[in-house]
């Protein structure tokens, strides 16, 4: 748990980087410091482990005044990852990962085991990579090692300064997903700095939006998107905030039962009749055991053909954990406006349609405060 009380930072040249910041990050919470550059988000984060000494106020880490602790001891108990990674080029991957355990004088065996464990956790083959040097890794792999290193001695708190900043968008999104999975397992208290609103919405349990050293709004992503506190927040999250809100919902939250499922052996004409009576354009074909095979239109159904021959195989399918924004773009990309939701065993468990998403958006819009609109008057 991290608590900031009236924290302020004034540099010797008189610039006030942070003004009277009071907030609390609860145990196991993923808190994102968000804001334009120069808003004081990085300064705020670095004051937590005393890399930047604070001018006024108090910071409590697990209830203890951080200033009163031995600085190096405090930092060894807090994981630290930065945008430029800063891997030690003269140390192997294992030595890099176990930097803090080395400082804490862990025995050799234990360190080796920990390095293997963490490499597996961040999705890298420990046998292949453990004795390599940072220069032998790709940018994405280096970022992974940076994350593994900040978890080195299993600290309860992590400070991360745009840890996925310096990599290409595809790798970044992959690393974000993986890190969320890791966080679901390890449940650390995290202070995470970014200027990317999408990253903040995707990663954060709470978002602290800052501007010119002041905390503007501190809320969970849904509240931030749904009821922005003022004009600045509204502008910062952008005009598409309703669309961004889709990211907060997952397919499994809103998916519906498929309207009609058809088994392989059924009679085509009977299926056609059923579809016509229910005014359905599409139905879904599944095998015994519920494995999804593809889509059927009533126009394609013909007496002389077996159902198997007329299916349209799915171009894309989604998992129950797919965020709605991704699901929406998948739907836009596929020929059929309906998306099948499959579980890990390829079993169909539901569908998403434009209608469902429109309903969700409508709900969010009504939660939103109505804005006066001049054209209507």
């Amino acid at each position, binding site marked *: 748990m991290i608590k900031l009380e009236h924290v302020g930072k004034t540099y010797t040249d008189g610039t006030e980087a942070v003004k009277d910041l009071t907030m609390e990050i609860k145990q196991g919470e993923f808190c994102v410091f968000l804001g334009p550059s120069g808003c004081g988000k990085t300064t705020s984060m670095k004051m937590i482990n005393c*890399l930047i000494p604070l001018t006024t106020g108090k910071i409590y880490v697990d209830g203890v005044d951080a200033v009163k602790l031995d600085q*190096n001891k405090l930092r060894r*108990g807090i994981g*630290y990852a930065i945008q*430029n990674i800063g*891997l*030690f*080029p*003269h140390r192997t991957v294992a030595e890099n990962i176990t930097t803090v355990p080395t400082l804490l004088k862990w025995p050799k065996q234990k360190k080796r085991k920990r390095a293997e464990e963490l490499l597996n956790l961040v999705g890298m083959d420990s046998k292949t990579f453990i004795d390599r040097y940072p220069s*032998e890794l790709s940018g994405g792999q280096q970022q992974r090692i940076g994350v593994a290193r900040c978890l080195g001695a299993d600290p309860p708190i992590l400070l991360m300064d745009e840890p996925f900043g310096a990599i290409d968008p595809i790798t970044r999104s992959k690393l974000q997903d993986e890190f969320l999975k890791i966080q679901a397992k390890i449940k650390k208290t995290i202070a995470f700095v970014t200027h990317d609103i999408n990253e903040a919405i995707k990663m954060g349990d709470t978002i602290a939006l800052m501007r010119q050293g002041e905390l503007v709004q501190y809320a969970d992503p849904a509240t931030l998107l749904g009821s922005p506190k003022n004009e600045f927040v509204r502008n910062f999250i952008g005009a598409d905030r309703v669309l961004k809100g889709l990211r907060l919902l997952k397919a499994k939250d809103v998916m519906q039962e498929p309207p009609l499922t058809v088994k392989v052996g059924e009679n085509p004409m009977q299926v056609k009749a059923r579809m016509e009576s229910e005014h359905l354009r599409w139905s879904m074909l599944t095998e015994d055991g519920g494995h999804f095979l593809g889509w059927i239109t009533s126009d394609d159904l013909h007496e002389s053909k077996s159902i198997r021959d007329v299916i349209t195989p799915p171009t894309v399918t989604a998992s129950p954990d797919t965020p709605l924004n991704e699901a929406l773009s998948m739907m836009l990309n596929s020929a059929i406006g309906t998306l099948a939701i499959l579980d890990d065993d390829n079993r169909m468990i539901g569908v998403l349609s434009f209608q469902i998403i429109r309903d969700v958006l409508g709900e969010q819009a009504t939660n939103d405060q109505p804005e006066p609109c001049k054209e209507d008057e």
Partner: protein
Amino acid sequence: MKQYMMLAILLVAFLGVTIWMTSLGSVGIFKVTPAMKIVSATVRHLQIVAVAELLAIIVGIPIGFLSTRRAFRFVSPVLIGVANVGQTVPTLAFIGITAALLGMGYTAAVIALFVYATLPIVRNTYAGIRSVDPAVKEAAQGMGMSKWEVTSRIELPLARPIIIAGIRTSTVVNVGTAAVAGMIGAGGLGAIIMTGLAVRVMPIVIQGAAPTAALAIALDALLGGAEEWMTPRGLKVMKQAQWQQQ
């Protein structure tokens, strides 16, 4: 392999020429320098270089390191400026000035060489420490390394190859400068060269010049090996990767 071959050939050539000239016995009315005297002059030469170099390392590395610290940053432009400009002063002029200030002899020569050898060491230590990526230092500090640990575990190992390259440069230059120091009565191989020039007997000049060259080559190779040996493996891997990318 090729470079070692070249090295061996050069060394053998210089030593061979020295032995040949020594075997002449006498040229006209002049006797050439006896073998024992060449050996003792070489030892003396090495001694001057070693003492000056050791002092330069002891003084140069701390000065170079301290100029990178925040507390001393106000003097570092001056220091580095002096180190750069100082190296442009020709060795002969440098030795002359020292002799004028401190008089002739061994001590003056060692002091002159020491000052001259300190410059590249200061400069390279400064450049080496400054070349360490600030992100690497920030990460080290953020994970709880003390100032001393950041220096001893991160900065110095990463700067080491550059510092040793500075020592290597200054040693090789010093072997030559020590020969010039023969002019102010410091002894060593320079004294033999001076004698030869004074009586205009070229074999005697070569008796001093060829061992000086051989010494410079040998020390350069030795310190090159040390540089290779003391470069952390990770840095070698990094350089190789950069080479392949080009």
